[in-house]
């Protein structure tokens, strides 16, 4: 049976988060924790593929205990099973250590039920790196397909997937072996309105929670802060853009003024 695992993360809602002007860090208490929007599309796609081809959708996350809420959200969207790795040993992980811990959890899940496909969101809205998905693929030694915005075909028997990858000037059609890993764009699907039975299931659902000790063959030096070579030297909020100039007067005057501005700054257009 087809087994798809979506890797998800609970993030602060950066649309409304406040920055602490003194320390230049995010005031995480100022924003509610939500399921990373890209990951919601990853779960939605996994559920759509399940509906089309049959199978099972699991979700996996790493996070503190309240992140169970994000897993419940995925159950609402139609995921069947949820796994969470939660341990102080994982705290402070950068993308390298995160992909390591998630890979160890994926290996454990795969022992219970082999995995055919892993789907991640393109990136998280709090980190914006987009590195964890490809990091997992590299560690599992499976092909990473980033920027997927359409799944054309999934064929478990013959072991391949055909997808569209979004490029700057169009898309490319790629055929890959299974298992592989997708990271998905938001335009891959629209999130469906969850049916009531899913909502009730989610309200009751308790995910499987593993600590670092529950994972096998773990090199603790590669976990959490210890396993994170990334150093954030400075974070700052981008300066607010200066207000533009609004042209007034008759249409003719406006066009003339616009033309003279363009001519004056013509080096910008060369």
């Amino acid at each position: 049976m087809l087994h798809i695992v979506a890797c998800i993360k609970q993030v602060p809602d950066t649309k409304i988060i406040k920055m602490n002007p003194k320390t230049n860090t995010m005031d995480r208490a100022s924003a509610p924790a939500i399921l990373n929007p890209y990951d919601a599309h990853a779960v939605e796609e996994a559920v759509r593929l399940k509906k089309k081809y049959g199978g099972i959708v699991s979700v996996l996350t790493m996070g503190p205990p309240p992140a169970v809420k994000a897993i419940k959200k995925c159950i609402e969207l139609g995921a069947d099973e949820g796994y969470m790795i939660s341990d102080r040993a994982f705290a402070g992980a950068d993308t390298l250590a995160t992909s390591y811990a998630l890979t160890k959890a994926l290996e454990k899940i795969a022992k219970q039920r082999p995995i055919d496909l892993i789907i991640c969101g393109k990136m998280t809205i709090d980190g914006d790196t987009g590195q964890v998905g490809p990091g997992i693929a590299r560690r599992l030694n499976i092909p990473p397909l980033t920027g997927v915005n359409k799944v054309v075909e999934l064929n478990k028997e013959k072991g391949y997937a055909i997808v569209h990858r979004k490029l700057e000037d169009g898309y490319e059609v790629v055929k890959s072996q299974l298992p592989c890993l997708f990271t998905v764009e938001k335009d891959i699907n629209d999130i469906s309105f969850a049916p009531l039975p899913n909502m009730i299931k989610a309200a009751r659902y308790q995910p499987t929670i593993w600590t670092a000790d529950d994972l096998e063959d773990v090199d603790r030096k590669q976990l959490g802060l210890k396993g994170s070579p990334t150093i954030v030297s400075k974070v700052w909020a981008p300066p607010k853009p200066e207000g533009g100039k609004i042209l007034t007067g008759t249409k003719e005057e406006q066009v003339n003024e616009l033309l003279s501005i363009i001519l004056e700054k013509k080096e910008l257009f060369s």
Partner: protein
Amino acid sequence: MPEKFDCIVVGAGPAGTACAYELAKAGVNVLLLERGEYPGAKNVMGGVLYRKMMEDIIPEFYKEAPLERPIVEQRFMMMDKESAVTFSYKGLEWGREPYNNFTVLRAKFDQWFAEKAVEQGALLVCETVAVECIVENGRVIGVRTDRPDGDIYADVVVLADGVNSLLAKQLGFHREWRPDEVALATMEILKLDKNVIEDRFNLEANQGCTIEIFGDATKGILGTGFLYTNKDTLSIGVGTLLSGLIKHKIKPYELLEYVKNHPMIRPYIQGSEPVEYLAHLIPEGGYHSIPKVAGNGVLVVGDAAQLVNAIHREGSNMAMTSGRLAAETIIMAKEQNDFSESMLDQYRMKLMESFIGQDLKKYKDATHHFESFPQYFEQYIPMLNRAASQMFTVDGASKWEKQKKIWRDLGSTKQKFKLARDMMKAWKVMK
């Protein structure tokens, strides 16, 4: 086949959550439906939570619930354009256990309360709107939600869906409320430094104050303004009967701006930053407006049942107690496996015997009386202010003279009789 619960409660406000909490505690399989993203997301009140009725449900809740400040002082201002006659009671005993009441922010409190119900075993499903009751052979057997595969069944449905209660209306329990049966309250939450709040309101840390404002706060329209202290915010608002707003052609937010800029109020809120703007209808029809509250397989609680005492600005306490009484009735009905109207009607009897029925009965004509006779707010409050000003202004005139002036200010003999008669009538509807 959709799942069947023992009970479905529609709406996770104080009434619905109290009901779900009590049911779950008794081992009843209860589903609590909430339309908001989380309980409290869409709920509004001025901000006073009464300790006693909450403690009837969760003893010593104040040790862990997210409360703002225990109220130690209640002030009442009879306000004119640039004066006010104020009286107040401040009692430090209210600042100690077991307390009297607290200011709360509903977005936080309701969420906490619903979590407590979930801990007892209630199943909470948010972001789901119950659009109608499913009725079969004259009894309610479940609700239809707005979600796909959204029908869900239960032995009994509790409607705690708030002031407009579309579900109770659909069942024919009540008609559309008249504009004189509902008040519209608009309020803002203003951020202000904790120490500044304590200085301005003469409070110590963990003490709170409420101010109810009558008269010019509502430009003479029947209603009240309020100003409550939270931890590091103030709640300021104004509520008037919808009929009053219509009659005077005033927009609710204009009234709120008017209060905020009133010279008697402005100094309290100076330098604060608005962080939230809220508005909600309040059922203020009182005793005469209480709809049918029990039917075959269905009960109505809280605002949906018009359980608000407008004179004493009590509502959340009545909501909680009604939810608790509904739960008691359902537990009894479950024991006898009888969810008929005649069985569930015991809830109405319990309600009427409790302080809810008694208090609403006591003031059954009060709102309507003041609504019909606008002179109380329009004329008598300014008159009271003029009298106080006359009496306390030291200008060389003798006190005899001053009393004469005040007496003259009451108007002609005919007007004085009218005033006396109005005071008698007010006493009669309030006593």
